[in-house]
């Protein structure tokens, strides 16, 4: 593999949801500005002007608002979108408040209110036949339609990725049929199926065992100098990356959630020639300018 390959640079949305994996205290201190979609949309646009190619986000009311504003600002056409579903935090919070059955009822109501005929029909089929694949498809149709209606027709939705809690639970439960059904459905929609995971080495191994073609997918997973959230170990993840048939992996947590300074983080990422790209969250305009300028100078 060549060091010269252009790496895709994406803006991550963690700071827009008040997430800091280094410290929740730090996320709180960052202040209220981050909760304004206008502020976040400006950060995405600044990142684009300084070298970013796209936006990786969990599908929530917040990020959909950001997409709508970017679209109004005329940034939609330039933006490549990588959407992570479901926004697990919100669903877990709802399950805590109203219980799992309450969550299912609320979600069914949302789909009905959306008047998305295809989603409603698929959902009915799923319920009547107790068909989990039909329910998965219902959910995907619903989320994709929400993204497209917010981002505009010109948006480039490159991939819809399953959130790590779904990917990793399905891996643990050996649900090869779920991965296969998901991949087939996404390819049918002419989108790359994607998987967000914190068990990268294990996922690569299982896909090999199940004869699932990794070249057809996008994988999003942590890679950083200190091995933070790289399971079972940094070495195993690096080995798995080197053995991939072609670069399909986007690194997240490259700053190890703020533990590393961008220059030292980038020096490590430069050594991983088999990465397809990186996603980095930014919380201030000067961060957006400096970080993406630095990434562009060093990785592109």
């Amino acid at each position, binding site marked *: 593999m060549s060091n010269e390959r252009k790496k895709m640079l994406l803006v991550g949305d963690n700071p827009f949801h*008040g997430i800091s994996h280094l410290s929740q205290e730090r996320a709180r201190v960052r202040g209220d500005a981050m909760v304004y979609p206008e502020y976040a949309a400006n950060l995405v646009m600044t990142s684009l002007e300084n070298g970013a190619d796209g936006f990786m986000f969990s599908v929530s009311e917040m990020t959909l608002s950001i997409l709508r504003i970017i679209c109004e600002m005329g940034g939609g056409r330039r933006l490549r979108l990588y959407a992570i579903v479901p926004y697990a935090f919100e669903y877990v919070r709802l399950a805590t*408040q109203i219980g799992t059955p309450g969550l299912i009822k609320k979600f069914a109501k949302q789909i009905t209110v959306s008047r998305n005929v295809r989603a409603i029909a698929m959902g009915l089929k799923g319920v009547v036949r107790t068909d989990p694949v039909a329910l998965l498809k219902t959910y995907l149709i619903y989320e994709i339609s929400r993204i497209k209606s917010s981002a505009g027709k010109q948006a480039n939705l490159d991939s819809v990725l399953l959130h790590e809690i779904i990917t990793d639970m399905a891996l643990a439960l050996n649900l090869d049929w779920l991965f296969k059904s998901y991949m087939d459905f996404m390819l049918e929609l002419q989108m790359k199926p994607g998987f967000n995971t914190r068990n990268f080495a*294990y996922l690569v191994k299982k896909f090999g065992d199940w004869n699932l073609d990794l070249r057809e997918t996008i994988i999003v997973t942590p890679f950083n100098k200190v091995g933070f959230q790289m399971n*079972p170990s940094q070495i195993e993840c690096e080995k798995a990356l080197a053995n991939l048939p072609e670069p399909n992996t986007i690194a997240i947590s490259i700053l190890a959630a703020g533990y590393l300074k961008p220059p030292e983080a980038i020096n490590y990422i430069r050594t991983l020639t088999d990465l397809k790209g990186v996603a980095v969250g930014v919380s201030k305009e000067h961060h957006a300018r400096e970080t993406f300028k630095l990434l562009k100078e060093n990785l592109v």
Partner: protein
Amino acid sequence: MSREKLRVAVVGLGKMGVLHASILNILPNVQLTALCDKSTVILKFSKRIFNRVHVVDDVEKLSALDIDVIYVTTPIFSHSLVAKNVYSREIARNLFIEKTLASSYDEAKEVCELAQAFGGVNMVGYMKRFAVTFRKAKNLLTQETLGEVSSFDAYAYSSDFLGSKKNSKTSASRGGALRDSGCHVVDLALWFFGDLQVDSAKLQSPTEKDSENSVYFRVKKPSGLEGKFSVSRCMENYRLPEMGLLVRGSKGIMRVNDDKVSLKLKGGKSSTWYRHDLNDNVFFWLGAPEYVREDEYFVKSVLENRSAEPSFYAASKVDYIIDQVRYRAGRNE
């Protein structure tokens, strides 16, 4: 245990049940054998999804399946009932129960007595003990790095019920802020400092029985150690539940939460350890590393037939503290 693989059943398929079932399924020395839930919808889908696992609607139906270990992940109010059923019908001798052990100290005592009578290994899911930061803090206390501990402040905050209009049935079934997240920090304090007595307590917004949203209480030990607890599930800006302690000792102070441990000694020396510095990786990550460590540890304890901590007995002390808090608060003490 002479078996190579433990046959494990999970009772209760809410989010904690599915999480434990997933982790157990990937442990090399476990065979996820059965799942049990009352909900018809969950049963139907479970049968479609888990085709190599028995799916049943009643705990009693597990008795025919030669089960070694049962995980109880039902709502708190039913923990003791399920445990009694499992023991009395001799379905399994080894039990893991999600926190809290029971919905009162009296129920917890009954479960402890049954566990004592039937033997086997038992444990309660206070997974914070398996977080690298709290483990580091425990080590620092054991090594007496802080000298003699005089006081501590503990908190458990979340925004889970912030803006929640009413106390739903689910909210009540979670047992209020104390049983929801406060119990974790109570368990940590018991683990760090030993037995504690409640001195005074105040509940806020107790709109339904045992379903308070915020609690403040003080504890003490005969040795003179004093502690304060602040627990709320309606705090602003706590996107994820967070808990932590500030511990004061004769040689300095220590702050610990889910993210880091900071030590400030009187000589001027200070240190901070983040999760990154404390080897937080696991062989498989699901939910959080502490869940995986917790299940690995419990399974290993069963296989080696040695006691696991926090045992039912240790965990019953949390139920005791919670009952004491409610009693004191009821008397405005």
